[in-house]
């Protein structure tokens, strides 16, 4: 029997000990009419051997493309050590560290993770993960409403330059709690959020203003000014950042006069494979003073009865298992194993490695944008500074067709912007990382030239 170790005598003796004749008697409290019949749609069990073959076939049916699409999920090199360690049974098959003394491995890793994330974002505390970047934004808006006791409304200003999926998810998450998400426009000239829109959309009395950096169309916002305006109006600032970019860009804890109040983002670039969209993890960092409003778990350092250092989950009274309907969030299971991977990633890369990753990613995007600008029928949508993504507009064939053409050449060639940003026209969002070589970029330019000219 797959995964069940019982022998026939075991079953017989166990039933005898219980005092029943057959396993089925153990279900005798269940009304007979409720009992399941045949589960016809479920295939017969296969030995591991057959499933192995099946999954290898399915895997081969996946393409193996040169990926130049980012749009929220980024191909980076993942040092091979990471997943060999993360897959160790002691990490992989442990539960949430409820018994701290028997979980110092997971707990210390989480503590180290929090330390690294706080350092990277220049904030004071980090939680132990949320589901992903998008849901983290949703949680952050709820947190801001709780934390900003002076705010007169549950209004959140949410720039259009934030990832459309993040806005959608935030809408789903907060939609039922009376929060008002007010969209700030996108300046189609600069690709940024107009500073004045913060005031005109009602920062005054708002609970928070969201500030993305880099923003979704690949531009860099004037974060200092946005933060200061928001703060001046009494709103908190929720930063949405790409963690890799923080090796190059000013960390949100240092934006403007006082820095962002809550920082969220997608942790995937930190050692997590693309893996069709998940599991990734969302991170959330904040000021120590606001730690009690955080959603999700957090690990703290303490001592044992002998004075030795140890780690425990702490600030537990915020959580659903203790506070139930009054918890700061309903999150329970989080993305712990991904956090383990990210901790290893940051440990292996260090500041130097992360900076190199960021610089290569950036330099590649700058070079590619310049090369594409040379092509007839292709034009960068924005010309301001960027991190590692940028938009180009195509004169000729519709983006959807061009993407198909690129796919036929083995290239996952970008994200079509028009469906979410009609104002940007027939345009495409592209990404490069340290993985992309000059030859990769040249291959992309060549393919695009053929498709746009052809």
């Amino acid at each position, binding site marked *: 029997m*797959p*995964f069940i*170790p019982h022998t026939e005598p075991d079953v017989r003796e*166990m039933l005898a*000990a219980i005092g029943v004749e057959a396993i089925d008697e*153990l*279900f005798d409290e269940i*009304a007979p009419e*409720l009992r399941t019949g045949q*589960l016809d749609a479920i295939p017969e*069990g296969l030995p*591991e051997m057959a499933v192995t073959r099946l999954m290898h076939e399915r*895997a081969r*049916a*996946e393409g193996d493309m040169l990926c130049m699409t980012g749009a*929220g999920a980024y191909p980076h090199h993942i040092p091979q050590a990471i997943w060999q360690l993360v897959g*160790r*049974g002691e990490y992989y*098959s442990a*539960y*949430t560290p*409820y018994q701290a003394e*028997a*979980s110092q491995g*997971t707990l210390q890793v989480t503590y180290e993770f929090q*330390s*690294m994330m*706080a350092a990277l974002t220049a904030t004071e505390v*980090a939680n132990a993960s949320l*589901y992903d970047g*998008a*849901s983290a934004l949703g949680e952050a808006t709820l947190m801001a409403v709780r934390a900003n006791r002076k705010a007169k409304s549950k209004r959140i200003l949410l720039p259009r330059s934030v990832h459309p*999926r993040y806005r959608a998810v935030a*809408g*789903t998450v907060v*939609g039922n709690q009376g929060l008002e998400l007010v969209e700030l426009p996108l300046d189609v000239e600069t690709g940024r959020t107009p500073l004045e829109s913060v005031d005109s959309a009602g920062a005054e009395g708002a609970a928070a203003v969201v500030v993305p950096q880099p923003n979704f169309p690949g531009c860099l916002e004037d974060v200092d000014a946005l933060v200061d305006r928001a703060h001046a109006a009494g709103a908190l600032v929720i930063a949405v950042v790409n963690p890799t970019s923080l090796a*190059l860009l*000013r960390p949100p804890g240092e934006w403007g006069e006082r820095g962002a109040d809550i920082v969220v983002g997608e942790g995937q670039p930190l050692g997590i494979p693309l*893996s*069709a*969209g998940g599991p990734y993890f969302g991170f959330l960092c904040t000021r*120590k003073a606001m730690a009690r409003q955080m959603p999700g778990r957090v690990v703290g350092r*303490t001592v*044992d*009865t002998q004075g030795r*250092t140890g780690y*425990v989950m*702490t600030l537990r009274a915020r959580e659903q*298992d203790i506070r*139930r309907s009054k918890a700061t969030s309903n999150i329970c*299971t*989080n*993305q*712990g*194993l991904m956090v383990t991977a990210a901790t290893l990633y940051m440990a292996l890369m*260090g500041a130097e*490695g*992360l900076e*190199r990753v960021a610089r290569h990613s950036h*330099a590649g995007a700058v070079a590619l944008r310049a090369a594409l600008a040379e092509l007839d029928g292709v034009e960068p949508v924005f010309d301001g500074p960027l991190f590692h993504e940028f938009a180009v507009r195509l004169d000729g064939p519709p983006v959807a067709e061009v993407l198909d053409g690129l796919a036929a050449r083995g290239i996952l060639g970008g994200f079509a912007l028009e469906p979410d940003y009609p104002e940007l026209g027939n345009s495409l969002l592209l990404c490069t990382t340290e993985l992309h070589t000059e030859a990769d970029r040249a291959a992309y330019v060549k393919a695009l030239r053929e498709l746009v000219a052809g």
Partner: protein
Amino acid sequence: MGLHETGKVIFDYGREGRAAGAQLPPPAPEPSDLPDTLRRRGRPALPEVSELQAVRHYTRLSQKNFSIDTNFYPLGSCTMKHNPRACNALAMLPQFLGRHPLAPPGAGQGFLACMHELQEILAEVTGMRRVSLAPAAGAQGEFAGVSMIRAYHDARGDHERTEILVPDAAHGTNPASAVMCGYRVRELPTDRNGDVDLDALRAAVGPQTAGIMLTNPSTVGVFERHISEIATIVHDAGGLLYYDGANLNAILGKVRPGDMGFDVIHLNLHKTFSTPHGGGGPGAGPVGVRETLLPYLPIPIVTHEGGRYRWLEEADCPHSIGRMTAFAGNAGVLLRAYVYIRMLGQEGMVRVGEYSTLNANYLMHRLQAEGFELAFPRRRASHEFIVTLKREHDAYGGTAMDFAKRMLDYGVHAPTMYFPLLVPECLLIEPTETETREEIDAFVDILVAIREEASRDPEILHEAPHTLPVRRLDEVRAAKELHLRWSPETG
């Protein structure tokens, strides 16, 4: 082991200028085209270590964990059963790992085929019409489910329903999720036998009732016998029934939530379908619905049309409650569950329910025979059951916590303690179907031995654990001092 236990954090191994040389990309030139105002000034305080140092530190750290792979782990409500290794290996084939979430369907029919079959199989085994794999965990599944209940009432113009009923023994996520969906929570008492108090339910329902959230078997480890009456009462009042699938393991293949009258459910693939807990996550919390709630399912969902798989998204599902995460949920977890299910098959699934129930009832009877007190002695155990140590506590002073900590010394992870709250000094024990009878018998022996220790010298328990990397940890101090990060200045 022994004297070499360092207690160091990774930062302690760092030295300025050290790096994992081969793991870094090559040096890169200073970017010239970023305005200074946007540039980072100092470097973040990340570790500066070699690959060997990182490997050694995190290998050693891992050894400080209990896990299924090293210990019996009868943590009630958590279904800590074996995580088959094939699930991990096959979900991590390079092509799956390399798939971008926005890859067009044409670039990856293999992955989509797995997702589609998984949807179908989960729908069948729960008796639901259709399943969405979008939610990332049980709690997010609850959120999605209750959101669908809300969407359903809203669509009917029925805006007066403001309350969700939740039994007092329910898992904390249930009330928390209901609140996140904008509902008030009304708690229902549990009767002496562990069932929902039907009179209280009748008194509680009304035009304000949006629905009820139930786990069945419930969190007190018994099957809710009045489920059909409950369904009738709630449905008659215009409410819907939400099924929290965290305990499905006990009845997998034996009873289906759909047949019990539930309208919407979530599953915890990281419990019933054996994906790993990973020291806290990730999980996956697919939701399933009856016909009536179909339009509201969260997106994306995989469909199979004309011999090809593709995602259903906003345009296909205009009434969907929306997206749960930016992409398609915890895809890698879903692949693991798919592999597990294919290995189990129909018969294997039924056996999960049978043998998890057998193990729990056997363990319950053995403990009872050894003189331990059960919370619900007249009930069958589901896949778990509750022991109360109140008697031992009164007699010797050892608490459930003390027992639990002492178990760690004996090499078994402690059961869930002090949950549900309504039973004093309780342990919620869930052996799961993948443990042997010998392991269960050994567990009985351990509990008996600890009780004997408690009667002889309660201090042994109170000072436990004695043999782990640390002795008992000071949680109060942790919360008071809030030392949540290492920093170069303060360590």
